[in-house]
């Protein structure tokens, strides 16, 4: 089996549009959550979101930008960064063994909702002809594949909040088993639209708005009330370690473990057993003992149930040593990017090893007796000797996914 390394990173996020800026903000404990300025905001009950400062025309000519739903714009910009970061150059032959896996929860939902609004509000009798190619879930993959001429496996994964962990994990396996040499993998989400926000609001999993929006999302804190929706994209370049070494690529880490398991229990409710099974399966896949893990990037949605159940599941897998492992939820800062969340958090993990700094959980002000691990509250923490990190993703629908990344040795 091939070993698989990470050679490039790309980020479009509420904390900045480069991996460096994103990580700097994370470590500083900055929040990307703000008041939502949209026209429809007054009609929302919860008027906060983690938005990207993203000007499409800074990245695309206007005639191109108008044909891309934001989900594809974010994905293309993050992929371009990752490919450049990896200094990737591929021959025609290599392009046939390179592909793109992207996770997204609702794809080009804006294109679809905009068209629907034309029907309802303006009684339109025809919709924009690009509605379908802009809205389809595999548009981001198609645009990235076309942009870089990648002709191997190009697939879209949609498993809600674990979509991009699955995309990265499946890309890892594809290279591991020799079906591809290079993969661009990650996630993209651009769903901060009226219809979607209203739907989320009524589900009751969103953080109630605090007087200071930045303090709204409070994972593992007793007064937590849910997550803040975010948008953006995160992409990595994965390649076989042999190839990366041969070309003298700068190697940012190695994926050593991946699991995807199903809850087979409830459409939204996570279980301790399901989460624990996912973490254990990733450890088994990596062939490492639980005590090798030096940091866990939690799923940490800040819903009352997730954080308790995830805490219990971590204790179940790691035993008494769980208390010695730092665990943080970076969603407290970048929000919940749904289909792009796992990839963004995976990049936070890669960079935490690179820089030997752990990103914190912010807004953890009120201790919860049921959440009693070391959540790295407040600010980033310098560490030494950090080699192996776990990234958890537990999704609506029950498709859980866990990735383990390690310093390449």
């Amino acid at each position: 089996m091939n070993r698989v390394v990470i050679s490039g990173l790309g980020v479009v996020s509420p904390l900045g549009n480069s991996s460096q800026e994103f990580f700097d903000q994370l470590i500083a404990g900055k929040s990307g959550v703000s008041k939502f300025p949209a026209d429809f905001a007054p009609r929302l009950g919860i008027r906060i979101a983690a938005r990207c400062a993203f000007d499409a025309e800074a990245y695309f000519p206007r005639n191109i930008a108008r044909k891309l739903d934001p989900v594809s714009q974010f994905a293309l910009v993050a992929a371009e960064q990752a490919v450049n970061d990896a200094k990737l150059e591929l021959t025609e032959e290599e392009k046939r063994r390179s592909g793109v896996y992207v996770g997204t929860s609702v794809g080009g939902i804006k294109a679809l909702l905009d068209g629907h609004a034309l029907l309802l509000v303006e009684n339109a009798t025809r919709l924009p002809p690009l509605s379908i190619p802009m809205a389809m879930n595999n548009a981001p993959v198609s645009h990235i594949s076309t942009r870089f001429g990648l002709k191997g496996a190009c697939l879209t994964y949609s498993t809600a909040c674990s979509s991009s962990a699955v995309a990265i994990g499946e890309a890892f396996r594809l290279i591991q088993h020799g079906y591809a040499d290079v993969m661009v993998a990650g996630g993209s989400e651009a769903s901060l639209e009226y219809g979607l926000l209203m739907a989320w609001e009524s589900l009751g999993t969103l953080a109630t708005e605090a007087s200071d929006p930045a303090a709204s999302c409070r994972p593992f804190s007793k007064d937590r009330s849910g997550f803040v929706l975010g948008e953006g994209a995160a992409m990595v370049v994965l390649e076989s370690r042999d190839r990366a070494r041969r070309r003298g690529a700068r190697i940012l880490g190695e994926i050593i473990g991946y699991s995807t398991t199903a809850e087979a229990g409830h459409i939204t409710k996570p279980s301790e057993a399901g989460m624990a099974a996912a973490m254990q399966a990733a450890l088994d896949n990596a062939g490492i003992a639980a005590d090798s893990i030096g940091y866990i990037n939690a799923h940490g949605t800040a819903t009352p149930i997730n954080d308790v159940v995830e805490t219990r599941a971590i204790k179940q897998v790691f035993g008494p040593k769980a208390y010695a492992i730092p665990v943080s939820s970076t969603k407290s800062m970048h929000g919940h990017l749904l289909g792009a969340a796992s990839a963004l958090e995976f990049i936070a993990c890669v960079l935490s090893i690179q820089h030997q700094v752990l990103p914190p959980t912010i807004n953890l002000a009120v201790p919860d007796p049921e959440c009693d691990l070391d959540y790295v509250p407040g600010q980033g923490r310098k560490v030494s000797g950090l080699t192996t990190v776990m990234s958890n993703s537990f999704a609506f629908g029950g498709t859980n996914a866990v990735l383990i990344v390690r310093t390449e040795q």
Partner: protein
Amino acid sequence: MTKTILERLKTLLLDQYNIDVGSIKPEAPIESIGLDSLDMVDFFYAIEQEFKIKLPTPNLNLKSIQDLVDLVERTVKEQTPQEPLNRTTE
């Protein structure tokens, strides 16, 4: 002076597709605009928005740019309410 239909089509092409057809001749084949089939469908939609009309679909038998201009002119006449007689502008 109001813009001719051809001029308005040229402006649309420049604004939305970044295509400058310059002094293209009306008798030039419609393919010479340089839009692929998907963009052509999108362009027809843009024309509908610009002229506030609904073109017949499918848009068959458009050979030249002049055919398109004629189609738009004909459709505008059919679908636009008569303007008031006491119009004083221009």
